[in-house]
Every structure is written in structure tokens, then in C-alpha cells.
């Protein structure tokens, strides 16, 4: 396509320019054939995708990375080192007190099922899409693991000061992921 993307780090368009590197850094989203099955009950996906265990530290890094997570294009979040947070939607601070893991998982997997006209992308859906670039065809925005990592992080964003985020992170980090 040509053109200089040098200052693009500040802009939303960095999305495409860096998405391949972003994928290289994380686990690549799986092609359609491997999409994990999930059950939606009353706007909730109760079970973790593929039974994976989320890592809140990785989740924070995903949310902070605007090429990978995209969240900060639209939301603000208590991630002070990231400037230029968007205001198309609300602040994610305190979301862990307002929403359950199952609600957050649903919101990330396919927010369109909650609100068909929402602008929030569906991070784990590959159908009903138009003109997707060849590089991203049949690929979800997040892998199942990344969905669980972000859910784990969002759960740490609690209003009640009693539960410090760092404590929560420690609690959520399971031995299984530590040993990987």
C-alpha cells in the first residue's frame, strides 16, 4: 500500500500495519476449523474457552497493546503509561466489580449477541464478516487463551479498594500457567 507509518503508533491505523507483528508476539489466533465451541446461556458464557486458565498479567499487556487488544482505541482503562486512550465508550476501571467472568467472556467473544448495533468488535467470531483482508480471513481477533487472559485481567479491576489489583493478579495466576 505504500506510505509511511512512522508516526502511526499514535493512531488507530497502526492496527493493520502491526497486526502481524502483534500476532507473532502472542499466540496466533486459530483458523476457523479450530474455533473452540462455547455455550451461551442468558447472555453469559460460563465456561472458560477450551478450559483454559487466564493470566491477568498477560491480559493487562494485551489490553494495553492497541494493535493487539484495540481496547484503548475506544475505552480508557487504569493503564496510566498508555496515553491517547479513546472515549467512544466508558472507562474499564471497576469493571471487575460490575461484571462476572461469564458476562465478560460473552462481551469479548461476541458483543453483537448482546447488542447487535454495538461498535465493539467480536473478538472470537469469524462468520458474517465482509471483505476481511486475506491475512485475517478465518482468524479470530483473539485466541481462546487471549480471551481468558483478558477476562482474568478485567476481573482484577475492582472498585472495592480492599482487593488490591496486584493481590487479585496473584490469586488468579494459577500454578498451571506459572509452570508453562
Amino acid at each position: 500500500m505504500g506510505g509511511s507509518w512512522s508516526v502511526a503508533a499514535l493512531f488507530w491505523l497502526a492496527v493493520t500495519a502491526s497486526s502481524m507483528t502483534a500476532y507473532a508476539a502472542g499466540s496466533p489466533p486459530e483458523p476457523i476449523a479450530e474455533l473452540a465451541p462455547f455455550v451461551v446461556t442468558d447472555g453469559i458464557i460460563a465456561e472458560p474457552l477450551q478450559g483454559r486458565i487466564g493470566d491477568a498479567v498477560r491480559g493487562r499487556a494485551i489490553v494495553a497493546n492497541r494493535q493487539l487488544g484495540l481496547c484503548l482505541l475506544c475505552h480508557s482503562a487504569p493503564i496510566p503509561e498508555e496515553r491517547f486512550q479513546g472515549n467512544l465508550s466508558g472507562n474499564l476501571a471497576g469493571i471487575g466489580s460490575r461484571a462476572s467472568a461469564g458476562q465478560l467472556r460473552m462481551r469479548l467473544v461476541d458483543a453483537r449477541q448482546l447488542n447487535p448495533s454495538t461498535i465493539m468488535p467480536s473478538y472470537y467470531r469469524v462468520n458474517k464478516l465482509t471483505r476481511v483482508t486475506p491475512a485475517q480471513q478465518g482468524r479470530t481477533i483473539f485466541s481462546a487463551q487471549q480471551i481468558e487472559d483478558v477476562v482474568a485481567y478485567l476481573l482484577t479491576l475492582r472498585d472495592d479498594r480492599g482487593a488490591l489489583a496486584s493481590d487479585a493478579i496473584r490469586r488468579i495466576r494459577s500454578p498451571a500457567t506459572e509452570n508453562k
Partner: protein
Amino acid sequence: MVFIWLLPATFAAIGTEACAAEEAANKAGNKITDSRKSGYDFMSASTQALQNDDSQNPAMLWVKDGEALWGREAGKDKKSCASCHGAAPKSMRGVAARYPAIEKKTRRPINLQQRINLCQKDHQHAAPFAPETQEMLRIESYVGMQSRGLAITPPRDARLAAFTQKGKVQFEQRMGQLDLSCADCHDNHAGKKLGGATIPEAHPTAYPLYRLEWQSLGSVERRLRNCMSGVRAEPYPYGAPEFVELELYLAARAAGMKLETPGVRP
């Protein structure tokens, strides 16, 4: 003494333009107040200052080169644009403001670049400038600048309606891996911050323009390709009918707004 003469004349000129703009805006259904904003209105004062002053505006480099191209002979008959069209400030005044328009032979809409290409092929018998090349941007910005200050005025041509409508459908069609439509951002969330960028209303008021992020002049299609890539959609190729239709719809949406060509954007 000179000032006494100049002042009323200047005001009169501004008055006519404002009337034309108002008339066109009324036609577009924006009767009482026109709350539409150009991308210019969303820019920082320092970026606006770049556009305001021709001696600072980087786009003027392309315009200057375009002026030279206007007089350059090409093709087997050694004709320049000027050979047929004379002085551009006169012959090209208002032309960019009414494109895309229907082309006589094919009865399909073409944009200004495609019109210039037709002159190169059919009238100059010369090799046409490819889209988005420096030469194309130079000549397009020179032609475009002759309409600076005029209202965007889509032709009153019934044949355009179906194509404009197709452009509207596309504008509202969600696309790409992020599954967002142009309207999602530009109709429903204009003025909001998408990361560090303010979402403008997507009015094609200043093309071709110098974009700081490109560090170059670019056409409206380059901008549209950027927006499509932004939502991870496969952009149309330059000059694709889908783009011309989108440009028609954008022009209809912006009817009556003033052209700023050559503009500056972040």
C-alpha cells in the same frame, strides 16, 4: 483609496459564494442550521495554521509542480492541457467541485483523476498518469485548487442517483475483521477520540491533501484505503467503481461545504 475599492468587491465575492453554499446546503436538506464540520474544524490550531498559509502549506509544492505540468506538452500532437483548456484559473474554476460526474461515452461516473486520464488518452494521446503517482497528485491538486472556496456541488444528473445510492449502502455496510461501517465512526461517533485521533465527519473537502502521517500529498482514495485497512478490510483498488460510488455519496453528504484544496490533515 485602493482599499476603499477593494473592500466592497471582496465582500461581494464572499457574499456570492456564501449564497451558493447556502443554496446547495438547502438542497441537501440542511435547511436552517448547517452543523456539518470539515475535518479542518477538528484539527489543532497549529495544523490549521499550516493549511491557512500557502507559504507554509506543504501541499503547495505539488500545486506548483502541477502548474508546470499543465503547460507541458505530451503525446504525438505535442499538446499540453493548456493548449486546449487555456488558463486553468479560468477554465478549471468549479470543475473539481462537481466531480465525480457522468462520463458521456460510458454513461458511468468517473472521478477527477479518471477525467484527467481520459484527456491524456483520448485528447493528448499520451500515457496516462497512474493513480496516486506524484505526477497525478500534482496535476490533480493544481486542477483542484482552482475550486478552492467554492461549494461542493454534485451535478444535477438523474443518472448519478443509482450510483450515489450504492455509495450510501457501502458507507453503511459493516466490513473487515473489526466489522465496522464508515457510518459507525463518521455518522455516529464523529468528534469522539479513537485512541489519539479525533474522528472527523468524513467530508471530502480538501483533497488531494497533505497528510502529516503520510508526509506526502494523497488522494481521497488513499484516505479511504487507510480507513478500510484500519478495520482490517481489504481495500478496493484505486479507481474501483466502489470507490467512485463512495466518493459520490461523500460529495452528496458534503454538498454545499466549501472546498479547501489543497488541505492539510493530521
